[in-house]
């Protein structure tokens, strides 16, 4: 027995420390500083690393109590169970179970994409005490205080930085609502003027905005992502707001004069357009980044915008796009109503000259983007020529 138990104990310890290290490392990509995000390849890439490190760390940590029990199995099955039973244990062991429970609940809700965003965000925050509890458990029971303290300090620093600068908005820039225009049923466009140094925003990017108080308006004052629909003189920018949840429904009644806090900008969706002719595919409010690009001026290369929407009443910016297409010979607009079957898409793609040589940018629901990728491949468009953006923070 003594020849096999040490191996299991060593494995248990290795899994615990490796898993805890990865969990703490997963907090670092959540430090949402725009310049750091740009340096590390964008928010999407950082989110992917956050997901990978967190899930892998969790999986390793799961192995830790199992290996501990395995070390006791040859003594007796009862001893093995008593080594990990959640009850009747010292505080340090109970803390470990509590931390594991929080990680499990937090991760389970992370993958429940149908949850309303607010509830999803609240449940996702369970992961923070889960990680901290796991570090405390490691420090209490391993006898190795120094590495536990170091990991705990890194975790607290990352969480604190994120809480203060991003979630509470201490790093936010002050703006004020200058104009509000209705662009479709349930879609407004708010033009915002900077009250201090403006953010360096470009078409294709998004900002996090928290709308506060105005003379006759009370906003949620929560940060939500909004795609930039235009960049104006003097640092003004416009964002499109679609009514998707409690805060964005309240924003449909937004008025000029309301104070806004902005973080960002984030994203590089339209940075890599290259010199090739363009095909832009937009689903619903996904048309917004393309509107921002078209408002910059006449297109520099042949550009076709395929715009799909459920109903003409939902087609934000449609009239403006039609006017731009009429005025710019290099820009072609193909617009149609479509449901989730995307019936008109194939015929619209067939009308795009030289489709195989086009650089494609797509923005819309995931199902639309997935269907589009398959059809583009059949038309000879290389996978590397397609850039898609979901503009979803989960």
């Amino acid at each position, binding site marked *: 027995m003594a020849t096999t138990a040490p191996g299991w104990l060593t494995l248990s310890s290795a899994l615990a420390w490796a898993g805890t290290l990865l969990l703490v490392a997963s907090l670092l990509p959540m430090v949402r500083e725009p310049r750091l995000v740009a340096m590390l390849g964008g928010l999407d890439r950082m989110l992917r690393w956050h997901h990978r490190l967190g899930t892998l760390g969790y*999986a390793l940590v799961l192995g830790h109590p199992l290996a501990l029990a395995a070390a006791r199995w040859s003594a007796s099955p009862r001893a093995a169970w008593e080594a990990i039973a959640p009850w009747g244990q010292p505080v340090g062991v109970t803390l470990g179970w509590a931390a594991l429970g929080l990680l499990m609940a937090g991760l389970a809700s992370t993958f429940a994409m149908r949850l309303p965003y607010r509830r999803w965000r609240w449940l996702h925050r369970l992961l923070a005490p889960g990680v901290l509890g796991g570090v405390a458990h490691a420090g209490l029971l391993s006898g190795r205080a120094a590495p536990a303290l170091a990991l705990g300090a890194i975790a607290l620093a990352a969480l604190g930085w994120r809480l203060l600068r991003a979630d509470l908005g201490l790093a936010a820039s002050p703006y004020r609502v200058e104009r509000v225009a209705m662009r479709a049923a349930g879609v407004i466009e708010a033009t915002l003027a900077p009250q201090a140094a403006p953010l360096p925003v470009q078409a294709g990017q998004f900002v996090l905005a928290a709308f506060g108080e105005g003379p006759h308006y009370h906003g949620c004052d929560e940060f939500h992502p909004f795609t930039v629909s235009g960049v104006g003189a003097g640092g003004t920018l416009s964002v499109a707001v679609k009514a998707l949840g409690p805060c964005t429904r309240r924003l449909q009644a937004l008025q000029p004069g309301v104070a806004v806090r902005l973080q960002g900008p984030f994203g590089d969706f339209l940075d890599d357009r290259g010199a090739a002719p363009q095909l832009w595919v937009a689903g619903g409010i996904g048309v917004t980044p393309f509107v921002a690009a078209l408002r910059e001026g006449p297109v520099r290369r042949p550009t076709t915008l395929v715009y799909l929407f459920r109903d003409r009443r939902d087609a934000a910016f449609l009239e403006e796009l039609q006017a731009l297409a009429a005025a710019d010979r290099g820009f072609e607009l193909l617009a149609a109503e479509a449901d989730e079957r995307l019936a008109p898409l194939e015929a619209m793609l067939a009308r795009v000259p030289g489709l195989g040589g086009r650089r494609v940018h797509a923005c819309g629901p995931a199902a639309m983007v997935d269907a589009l990728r398959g059809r583009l491949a059949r038309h000879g468009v290389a996978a590397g020529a397609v850039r898609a953006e979901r503009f979803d923070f989960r």
Partner: protein
Amino acid sequence: MRTLFLSSTLAFWITVAAFWAGGTWWPGAGGGQATAADREIAAAEVARHAVPKDCWMIIDGRVYDVTRYLPNHPVGPSMVVPWCGKDASEAYCTKNAGRPHTAYADQLLPAYRIGTLAH
């Protein structure tokens, strides 16, 4: 990542349930080791295993072979080696500094038990 989460969580709970079932319905199985742990060992016998490569010690009336554990001791083997072949009860309970070993150490110890001190 969703697949990794779901599969690892499912495997975890199935294994935990197996340990619970084993501990509940077959608590005393693994008799070979139980027999070894019941073996009575005299203090003189323990004293003959007093070097790092063959290190036995007595803690609270039980005899442990900690030879394979020595390299894994958190502060290194040097704090443990002086107690090879001896009764280390006081040292284990106080670490000679008024502080007991951790609950984790208490959990590890039974894995190294080889017998009971003969009186």
